């Protein structure tokens, strides 16, 4: 059904008039021009399209627009708006990317983890990240980076 859906996007009010059954991924990318959120598989199997809704990491390719009405949505463009976020900084330090295509989804998945579990063990991190796929094989560095970001947050707290 075409209607106006209102939600908070990266800290600002957003009002989108669209078929509310359309998936958030495409609304973000083509209607709102936020292309940092990537298409990878279209079936919630790879995690490239991960964004934050409320406090959760969700797969935007399988999240209809109507599901975010009144919610807080954060995309990769929304974190680190005033200087890099600790997770982004740690990804840089550890060179936790190669092609970079899965990276926004990885960072937002990690963001959701640290929201709920600020001091995760390495096993908790690996378990949380399990369904975010990286084909270049940066896994070890991604785990290192998330561990470091958690430590940095702890030190800063």
């Amino acid at each position, binding site marked *: 059904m075409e209607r106006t859906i209102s939600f908070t996007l990266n800290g600002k009010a957003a009002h989108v008039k669209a078929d509310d059954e359309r998936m958030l991924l*495409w609304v973000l990318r083509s209607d709102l021009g936020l292309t*940092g959120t990537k*298409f990878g598989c279209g079936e919630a199997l790879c995690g490239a399209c991960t964004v934050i809704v409320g406090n959760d990491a969700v797969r935007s390719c399988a999240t209809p627009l109507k599901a975010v009405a009144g919610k807080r949505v954060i995309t990769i463009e929304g974190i680190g708006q005033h200087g890099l976020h600790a997770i982004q900084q740690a990804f840089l330090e550890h060179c936790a990317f190669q092609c970079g295509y899965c990276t926004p989804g990885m960072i937002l998945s990690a963001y959701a983890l640290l929201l709920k579990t600020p001091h995760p063990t390495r096993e908790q991190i690996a378990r949380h990240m399990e369904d975010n796929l990286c*084909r*270049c094989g940066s896994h070890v560095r991604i785990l290192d980076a998330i561990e470091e970001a958690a430590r940095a947050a702890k030190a800063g707290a």
Partner: protein
Amino acid sequence: MAESAIVPGEMKRRDFFGAAGAGLFVFFGADLAEGQEPGRLPGRQSGPTDFNAYLKIGADGRVTCFAGKVELGQGAMTELAGALAEELDVALDTVDAVMGDTDLCPYDMGTFGSMCTPLLWPAVRRAGAEARAVLVQMASERLQVPASQLQVQAGIIRESGKPSNAVTYGQLVEGKRIERHLADVPVKAAGFKVIGTSLRRKDGPDKVTGKAQYAGDLLLPGMLHAAILRPPAHGATLKSADTSAAEKLSGVRVVKDGGMIAVLDERPDIAVAALGKIKAEWENAPAGPDDKTIFDHIQKTAPQPRVVGQSGDLAEGERLAASVIEETYLNSYVAHAPIETHSATAQIEDGKVTVWASSQAPFQVQRAVAAALGVPAEKVRIISRYVGGGFGGKTEADQGVEAARLAKITGKPVQVVYSRQEEFFYDRFRPAAVMKIRAGVAGGKIVLWENQVFGAGDREANPFYDIPHKRVTSAGGWMGGNPAGMNPFAVGAWRAPSVNSNTFARESHIDTLAMKAGIDPLEFRLNNLTNERVRRVLETAAKRFGWKAGHAPSGRGAGMACGMYSNACNATMVEVVVNRGTGAVEVKRVVMALDEGLVVNPDGMRQQAEGCVIMGLGYSLAEEVRFRNGEVLDTNFDSYRIPRFSWVPKIEIVLVENPEMPALGGGEPPIIAMGAALANAIFDAVGVRVVQLPMTPERVKAAVAKA
């Protein structure tokens, strides 16, 4: 944690490129030597002689590096910018890189075969060295000081002892092209500031903030997204298509052109939904092989074998052998499965066609687009700035041609982004392969080696062991030229083409021979090997791993393999735990010693090796494309499993210093020995030999049950 170490070696860094005279013009010859399919070679286009092709210095002193190769994630952008920073004596932060743009960059045939480091990198260095020498000469004239009394630091040329008498690169060049040239300027031989240090990636800030723009991220005014009707199977033909329901949708446009039926809309998901409204009837593909019958099929349909290695006399080898062992090894089709699917955005303005394409070979795409549109190549510009993984699978870019055709027809910019299903369907898979080996040992020495390779291709089929009587043949391969129907779909280069299959077979068989001879596999390899570099990586890896001499199966689950590719060599040692009940293999630890010649960027090299270990787990243990009668049954990541966080072992990469050897490509060689090292470790753990990749739980379980 990945741990790394550098084994100290002689630190005398000499520059081989300058000494050997290799450089700007070797692209074509080097590719032929690699066995590139002749039919797909472009017309001869030599590399530029003018250093201006590779670099530009702005009025502000910022340097731009131009390279026709593509940043696929392997770090080429950083490495090439580093080459200029080194030779020009400027900070890496002040060097930008423009890559994969056919209008701005010098011709390049494609980013494959691990050639960035051995071929382009030295060319860029030489360009930087010549430019620096020219700038010093210009400064000498401007400052009225002999060149010998000038010093260069951070792009500023100063008089020694009188630093106020100075001029910057930016002031000398004023953003113009440098017209002066000097012959035979040597590159730096010592005193490196950049080479040999771990560099912070230049693409990092774009990638962690989501600003990195891939081919499907362009948003042009009026742009349409296309969804294209695809057959259900390779070989299926369209009988009829009723597009009337799609055409009725508001805003949706249907285009039929030369066999292509496309649905376009301003929003990609709407285009895909509209495509679903087309009622298409297909004539089934003719019956063909499936993933179980393919191995017989390949042997029956393969072309005449070529001899790729021969010495001595096989009959004499048979006579000498105390025991002869024969085995047939199999390898499956695997997909490249980059997370970014093939994507392109095309725009035509005033007769100029611009296509942003995820491609490893923009100059090849340029020719393909020009041919499809019937325009000269100079009217086509391809831009491949960031590509979301390639691994050999983005050499062709049919989606770029489709986008350009649709842009021409609609008069609007058009974007084509493959769905995951299209990505699997149109992938040019690594070919399935059969390797038959018959080999004999006597007194701890290999005396006989007869190897018939079908389907894999011939790279590294000829063993580097010292074998007096051998014959190696190869029939068909990844690079085309196979008889029609040998492979039921297109095949192509997959990270280290041919070599994963050939190394798996050879190194599995070496372990079996060692067991037969009653000798520890490390000792057996060293007994039969005079290649000093391979010996050194084996010994280095064994030391780091803590290899314990013994006879397999020891129950420990330790395995090794070694290999060479593109002149780089590695020894890989792994530790596994095998669940006899389920057949599941858990990899605990991987130690890899690598000889990559002069290591330009140690952290970059380690990262490539880590990536190879993880991707190697995929093709060794899980990845296999299932198909039947032309239909590709794996269409997404639910059934086609690629490595995940829980699979990742402890990885230890040891870079063996070998600065006497030129820098070698690092994106492919570290992956080649994973299959055999794991097969040998599984044997060591449970005493069964798995001869088919991937070694899935089902196959391991079946092998255990059979034993």
